[in-house]
C-alpha cells in the first residue's frame, strides 16, 4: 500500500488543505471548548497560589520541585520529536514526513511554550524568573554561568527561537498559496504579510533549499543538547537517583519517545477533525508507529542500564532510592511507569495494531501517561529519600493546585495547537505536491523500463 495516492491533482491538495482552515469537523470546536475550560482550571490554581503562597501547592522542604518541574521535563521532552524528527527525516530524504512534519513542528513550539510556564509557576514569585537570565543584579553580580539551570534557560530559548524559525521558513511557500487563494479579509492580510512576497522564483527556491537544510543541520545537535542539559540539572547534582552517567541519553530517548507518542495522538485527531484522510494515511501512521516502537525499546534498555548501574555501583544511597521507588510510597506510580513505558508499547509490534486507530489512540495516550510518570518518578522519590535521614519521612503528595496546573497545561497546549491548525496549514501543501510529483515520476520510470511489473509494487 502506497504512502499517498500519486494521482492527486495539485489543485486538489491546495483545496483540501485550505478547506481545513475554514471548515473543520464539529469536534474541533468541542476540543477547543474543553481546552479553554482546562486552561481556566490552571489559571484559577495559579491565581490562588499567587495570592495565598506556595504552601497551597503542598510543596515544602525538601520537595521544592514537585509536579511543576516533572511537567516541565515532560513538556520539554514532548517538544523533541517534532523539530528533531522533522530535521532528521529531512536530511535522510524520507519523504513520508512531508504530510505530517508541519504539525509536529508546531507541537514542538507549543510544548516549549508550555514547559517555560512551569519554570515561572514553580517559583511562586513568577517575576523572579529573571534570575535565570544572563544580566547582572543591582550589586553587579551575574548569574552563575556554570549552573545547568542557566544553561537550561539559554538552551530552551535557542531551541524555541530556532524551532519557530524552522517552522516559519518551511511555511513561507504555503503562506503564499494561502495569500493567493484566500478571499479578502484578515486572513489574506495576515498571509500577505507573512509570505514576504514569495513568488516561487528559481532564485527563491534555490536559497530556500539551502537555508532549510542548513537550519535542519543545526537543529539536530541543538535538540540533543537541550535535553542533555535538562538531564544535567539532575545528573550534575550529587543526589542519589540523579547522579547517573547515562542520564543525558536516557532523557533524549525519553523525549523522543513521548514526542513520537504525541505525534500519533495528534495525527489521529487531525486526520479526523480536518478530514486529512488522504494525506495522513495509514501507511504513514504505520511508519511512525514502528519508529515509536523502536524508540520505546531503546528507552526500556536505557532504563535497565540505569537500574543495573545503580544496583551494582554499591552506592547505598542510590540503591536505597531505587528500592524505595519499587517498594515505597511511589511504587504504584513507578510500576505504572514501567507498565505504560515498556509493556504497553509491545502491542505496537503486532501488525494488526499498527493501523488500528482506536487501539493506537489508546496506546499513544498510555505511552504519554507512562512518560509523564517517568518524569515524576525522577523528581519526587529522590527528594523523599535523599542522603539526609531527615528527608526520609517527607513523602509528599501534591495538592489539587499542582494537579490543576498540570491538568490545565494540557488545555493550554491544546488551545495553542488547535488555533495554529485553524489559522495556518497543518499539512505542507508544496511538499505534498513534491512527494506526489517525485513518486509519480519514479513510478513512470519504472513502468517505462518494465521493472514496475517485475517488482509488483510501487516506487517507494
Amino acid at each position, binding site marked *: 500500500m502506497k504512502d499517498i495516492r500519486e494521482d492527486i491533482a495539485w489543485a486538489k491538495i491546495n483545496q483540501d488543505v485550505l478547506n481545513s482552515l475554514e471548515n473543520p469537523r464539529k469536534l474541533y470546536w468541542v476540543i477547543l471548548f474543553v481546552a479553554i475550560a482546562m486552561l481556566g482550571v490552571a489559571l484559577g490554581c495559579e491565581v490562588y497560589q499567587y495570592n495565598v503562597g506556595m504552601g497551597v501547592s503542598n510543596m515544602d522542604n525538601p520537595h521544592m520541585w514537585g509536579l511543576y518541574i516533572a511537567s516541565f521535563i515532560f513538556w520539554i521532552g514532548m517538544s523533541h520529536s517534532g523539530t528533531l524528527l522533522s530535521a532528521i527525516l529531512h536530511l535522510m530524504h524520507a519523504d513520508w514526513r512531508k504530510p505530517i512534519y508541519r504539525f509536529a513542528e508546531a507541537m514542538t513550539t507549543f510544548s516549549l511554550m508550555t514547559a517555560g510556564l512551569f519554570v515561572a509557576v514553580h517559583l511562586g514569585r513568577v517575576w523572579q524568573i529573571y534570575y535565570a537570565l*544572563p544580566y547582572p543584579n543591582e550589586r553587579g553580580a*551575574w548569574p552563575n554561568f556554570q549552573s545547568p539551570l542557566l544553561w537550561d534557560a539559554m538552551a530552551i530559548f535557542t531551541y524555541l527561537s530556532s524551532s519557530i524559525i524552522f517552522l516559519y521558513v518551511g511555511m513561507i511557500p504555503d503562506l503564499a498559496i494561502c495569500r493567493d487563494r484566500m478571499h479578502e479579509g484578515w486572513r489574506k492580510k495576515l498571509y500577505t504579510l507573512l509570505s*514576504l512576497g514569495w513568488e516561487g522564483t*528559481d532564485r527563491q527556491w534555490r536559497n530556500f533549499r539551502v*537555508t532549510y537544510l*542548513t537550519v535542519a543541520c543545526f537543529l539536530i545537535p541543538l535538540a540533543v543538547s537541550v535535553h542533555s542539559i535538562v538531564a544535567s540539572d539532575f545528573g550534575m547534582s550529587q543526589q542519589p537517583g540523579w547522579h547517573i552517567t547515562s542520564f543525558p541519553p536516557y532523557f533524549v530517548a525519553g523525549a523522543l519517545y513521548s514526542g513520537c507518542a504525541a505525534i500519533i495522538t495528534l495525527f489521529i485527531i487531525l486526520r479526523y477533525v480536518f478530514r486529512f484522510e488522504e494525506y495522513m494515511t495509514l501507511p504513514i501512521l504505520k511508519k511512525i508507529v514502528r519508529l515509536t516502537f523502536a524508540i520505546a525499546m531503546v528507552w526500556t534498555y536505557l532504563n535497565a542500564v540505569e537500574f543495573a548501574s545503580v544496583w551494582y555501583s554499591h552506592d547505598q544511597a542510590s540503591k536505597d532510592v531505587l528500592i524505595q521507588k519499587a517498594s515505597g510510597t511511589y511504587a504504584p506510580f513507578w510500576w505504572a511507569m514501567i507498565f505504560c513505558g515498556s509493556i504497553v508499547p509491545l502491542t505496537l509490534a503486532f501488525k494488526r495494531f499498527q493501523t488500528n486507530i482506536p487501539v493506537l489512540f489508546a496506546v499513544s495516550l498510555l505511552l504519554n501517561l507512562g512518560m509523564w510518570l517517568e518524569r515524576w518518578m525522577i523528581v519526587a522519590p529522590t527528594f523523599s529519600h535523599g542522603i539526609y535521614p531527615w528527608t526520609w519521612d517527607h513523602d509528599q503528595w501534591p495538592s489539587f493546585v499542582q494537579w490543576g496546573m498540570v491538568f490545565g497545561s494540557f488545555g493550554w497546549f491544546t488551545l495553542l495547537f488547535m488555533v495554529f491548525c485553524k489559522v495556518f496549514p497543518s499539512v505542507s501543501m508544496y511538499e505534498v505536491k513534491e512527494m506526489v510529483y517525485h513518486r509519480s515520476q519514479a513510478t513512470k520510470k519504472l513502468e517505462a523500463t518494465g521493472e514496475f511489473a517485475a517488482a509488483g509494487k510501487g516506487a517507494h
Partner: protein
Amino acid sequence: MSQRHILALYSNFNEAEAVVKELRATPIKGFDVNKDLTVKSPIEHPEVEEFLGNKPVYVQWFTLGGALMGGLLGFFLISAAQGNFYAQFKGGKPIVPFPPNFVLTYEMFILGGVFISVLGFLICAGLPARRSPLYSAKVSEDQIGILVKSDEGAANTLKAIFAKHQALEIQEEAGK
C-alpha cells in the same frame, strides 16, 4: 528602449524546460537569457536548476559567519561577565572556566548560525519583496511560469517561442 515583461504559463516542467532550452539556443537582441529569465514553480524542483544552469548560493557563508560570530560573542560575553568576579574569592578555581563555558558557547554558536542563516536567506532570495510586474496565482497552484524581461523589439519573438511550446496563457505588461 522601453522594456516589456512577459509571463508564460505551462502545465509541466518538460514544456518549461523545452522553452528555456530554445531561449538559450536562439540569440535574441535585447534579451539576455542569464539575466532576464525567471522560472516560477509551485514546488522546489532540482531539474529547474539544471536547465537554468548553475547559479551560486551564498547562504552558507552567512551561516558560517553567524555561527562563528555567535560562538565568539557568547564566549567573550560570558568571560567578560565572569571577569567581574575577579576581585572576589574564587577558591583557587579559574576565573574563566573553559568546560562549563563551552555549553553556552555551543548554544550561542547554533543560535548565531540559525539567525544569520535566515537573514542570509532573506537577503539572497530578495525577500521581503513586492510583487513582480506579472504574477499569476496559478503558479502557486499547479502551473510553471516563465517570466522574461526584454526590449520591446524582442517581445514578439519571445511570445512566438512561448506560443510554439503550447503556453496555457501569455500575459504581457510594460515594465521599467
